[in-house]
């Protein structure tokens, strides 16, 4: 091969690199190892993580049952080791699967159109705001609820700070975004109002009247929702939302220390051409046969370059595929069962704690699978002692920077505990949790 190239050594292939910066002694890394050694090293590392406790921890990632079909399909190399389907004729598999994913996200949220996935729930909120900014050319403000996940707020700030876009927080009262405050903050330059339900504290919020207010000022109404909740609870479309977003880890993925997961974004039809990222569309081939293709590419970076409104290229296709397999396996009935078991078991734990222990509801709102209580002592101590008893008891919502949601006079929220329950938890585990907390509060 070197002879064909007209070189006598491999080193000569790098003669175009200026010699003063050529590495003389290679990289300062150890030599390669065998598969078996590397696997064992990684196994030992993985064992330094603690994953043996019974989890009541949520806050954006939830411990649901994963059917065997999901892992099976994700392991297929035809999906796992393919690039983005630029060549549609040899990529009908992933294209059709994503088209079906898009359809199911529309069914769940009640909206008309979906893209092929985004990085995560936080980036989906950023992109939804961008749809709002494009839709109203005079707009330069984004209003978001105080009850949004604080990490999502931070990602919003990272994306919009210093770009001439104002970010303003809408106060919440008793775990519910305030409609009067929203009205007051809204102006003709508002691009979007972003709310979340179930919110960061687990509360289901009531958005009656929000969409009308937003629309009366030309702003988009964006609802972020845990998509699992949508099997039973009111959809973003039913609240009048223009765009729905959220995170799809709940559909078939372990927590994976936060990723890979994926963000979803669905919208009313009129916003289709303003959607970010890849979109799969239906078309026909030369024989008139139905087929699928990446479409509306004129929106995208490789065509529009610096005029593109989103830079997304690679996203989370394999996760979207896994979400679709999960939803197809469970079907409508299965998903409703997961949703209702999670809700009922969360309610059961909530009621047991209220009956047995000196704890109070932090907010008077209904909830789905996660709720926040106020403890008579800093929650950090309780979390630690429950951890020793074998439970991930939840998290203190004030550990992340939550702003003004929690009344500052009440120990700055250090006594709050947010607890999640899924269909995976048994009555025995829940009862065990209650007695462990009894011990923790002694």
């Amino acid at each position, binding site marked *: 091969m070197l002879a064909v*190239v007209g070189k006598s050594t491999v080193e000569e*292939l*790098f003669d175009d690199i200026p010699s003063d910066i*050529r*590495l003389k002694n290679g*990289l*300062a*890394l150890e*030599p*390669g*190892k065998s598969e078996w050694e*590397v696997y064992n090293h990684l*196994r030992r590392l993985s064992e*330094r*993580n*603690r994953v043996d406790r019974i989890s009541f*921890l949520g806050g*954006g990632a939830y411990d649901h*049952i994963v059917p065997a079909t999901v892992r099976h399909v994700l392991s*297929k190399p*035809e*999906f796992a*080791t*393919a690039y*983005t*389907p630029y*060549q549609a004729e040899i990529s009908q*598999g992933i294209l059709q699967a994503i088209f079906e994913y*898009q359809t199911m996200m529309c069914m769940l949220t009640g909206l008309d*159109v979906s893209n092929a996935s985004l990085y*995560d729930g*936080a980036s989906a909120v950023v992109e939804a705001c961008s749809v709002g900014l494009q839709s109203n050319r005079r707009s330069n403000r984004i209003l978001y609820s105080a009850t949004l*996940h604080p*990490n999502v707020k931070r*990602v919003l*700030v*990272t994306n919009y700070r*210093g770009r001439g876009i104002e970010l303003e927080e809408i106060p919440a009262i008793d775990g519910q975004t305030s409609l009067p405050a929203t009205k007051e903050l809204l102006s003709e330059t508002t691009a979007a109002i972003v709310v979340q339900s179930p919110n960061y504290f687990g509360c289901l919020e*009531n958005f009656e009247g929000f969409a009308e207010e937003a629309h009366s000022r030309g702003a988009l109404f964006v609802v972020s929702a845990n998509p699992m909740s949508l099997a*039973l*609870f009111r*959809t973003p479309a039913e609240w009048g939302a223009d765009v729905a977003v959220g995170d799809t880890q709940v559909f078939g993925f372990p927590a994976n*220390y936060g*990723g890979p997961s994926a963000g979803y974004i669905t919208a009313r039809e009129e916003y289709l051409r303003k959607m970010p990222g890849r979109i799969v569309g239906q*078309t*026909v081939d030369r024989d008139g*046969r139905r087929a699928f293709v990446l*479409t509306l590419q004129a929106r995208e970076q490789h065509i529009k*370059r610096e005029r593109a409104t989103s*830079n997304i290229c*690679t996203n989370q296709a*394999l996760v979207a595929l896994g979400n679709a397999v999960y939803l*197809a396996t*469970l*079907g409508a009935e*299965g998903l409703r069962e997961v949703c209702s078991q999670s809700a*009922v078991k969360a309610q*059961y734990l909530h009621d047991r704690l209220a009956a047995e222990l000196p704890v109070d509801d932090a907010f008077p709102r*209904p909830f*789905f699978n996660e709720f926040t209580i106020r403890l008579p002592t800093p929650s950090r101590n309780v979390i630690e002692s429950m951890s020793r008893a074998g439970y991930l008891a939840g998290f203190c919502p004030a550990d992340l920077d939550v702003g003004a949601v929690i009344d500052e006079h009440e120990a700055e929220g250090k006594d709050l505990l947010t607890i999640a329950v899924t269909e995976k938890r048994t009555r025995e585990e829940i009862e065990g949790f209650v007695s462990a907390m009894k011990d923790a509060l002694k």
Partner: protein
Amino acid sequence: MKDERPLLFETAREGRTGYRLPDSDVDMRVTATRGERALVRQSPLGLPSLSEVDVVRHYTNLAHDNYCIDLGFYPLGSCTMKYNPKVNEETARLPGFENLHPLQPEADAQGTLELMHDLIVRLCTITGMKWGTLQPFAGAQGEFTGMRLFRAYFDHRGEGERTKILVPDSAHGTNPASAHIAGFEVHEVKSDRRGMVSLESIREHLDERLAGIMLTNPNTLGLFEEDILEIAQAVHEAGGLLYYDGANLNAIMGKVRPGDMGFDVVHLNLHKTFSTPHGGGGPGSGPVLVNERLRRFLPIPDIQAVDGRFLLTNDRPDSIGRISGFYGNVGVLVRAYTYLLTMGADGLAAASERAVLNANYLRELLKKHYHLPFDALCKHEFVLSAAKLKEATGVSALDIAKRLLDYRIHPPTVYFPLIVPEAMMIEPTETESKEVLDGFVETMVEIAEEARKSPEKLHDAPSATSVRRLDEVLAAKKPVVAWRRPL
């Protein structure tokens, strides 16, 4: 004519179910809404009802309609479609990694945090940088992160007027898009007759408004930017910074480092250079690495090692903030880390050597049959042009690409870079043997022959695939992006 593949929704039958959940052992009559009827979903859910075997057959059939690197050659330029070692999948699926929750305390996450910390150290060693973040989910988000770092750096120095980013006309489309959405003004700089960025064109922009330049080196023509040291010096002297798009790092591992070339910020694509599977379009990972002067601006949380313990800290007052909702695609990081340990210093250098040898071998053999506009020693890829062939025969780069599908070969990247008409960008990677490369050359020669003898065969291609050429105009004109239940 072959049959259409039914959609899940068309296969579904009421009453079927693919999964059994444990029976609930708590009283299911409780209502969760505390009587607030408005909170209940009104519309039917509509999800399909299928049995487990329905689901498995559906996806097995779909998989059958999908090409992938495990099936064959995938010389998709700038995408580095190398083989994905299977041990990477096994390590990523170790329960200790998979089941770790992002809100568990650091004490519970020592294994993953050590892995992440050590991965940053190693990526810095490979690139010659000082520290970094693993949060960006993909290369484009890495670019955006890098541009926010630029902004923070200049704002910190009171140089808010530096808003101009230079991007070569051969750059990846994500470069100008990322710079633009990060709030910069994009100025294109020309490539010269060698196919390299023109130093003259850069010099026109060296003023107090310059923020910096984004470069890929080797560039998208596969050529090493020979003037890189002069470019770096000129940009730095003008007060600007250099951004390295790491999409093409596979060409130079162990040979030269972006840090030594003078770059201030680097992003890598772990799903390209570091062998994590591309998943049909993600999940990827686009870590960003910086030199000392940009370190203080890196995203939070930062990972710290203190006395052998690993901690996450938000105590970085100058940070640009959070990029990811949690910590990025951690599962992808485990795969890349596995690859790095397996390869080691020798393996990584050998990968680059073979990738470059493979590319030059193909270049030499193919230039006899296709026009090679920039005929020089290349690195990991090179770009042919079908423009002359098109003039002579009417056969375009797209036709050639579609004909390759009939031969079960993934086509090169076509119509990119934009500076080459009818471009075909070929990146063989180190994965392929001489036999595979020779087979590809043979096929390409045959196609060139066909173009002259029976061009209609190429216009009609592909014919051996599950569908024939698609009507992309119809898809964009009358977009249907979700299935609707027939009325």
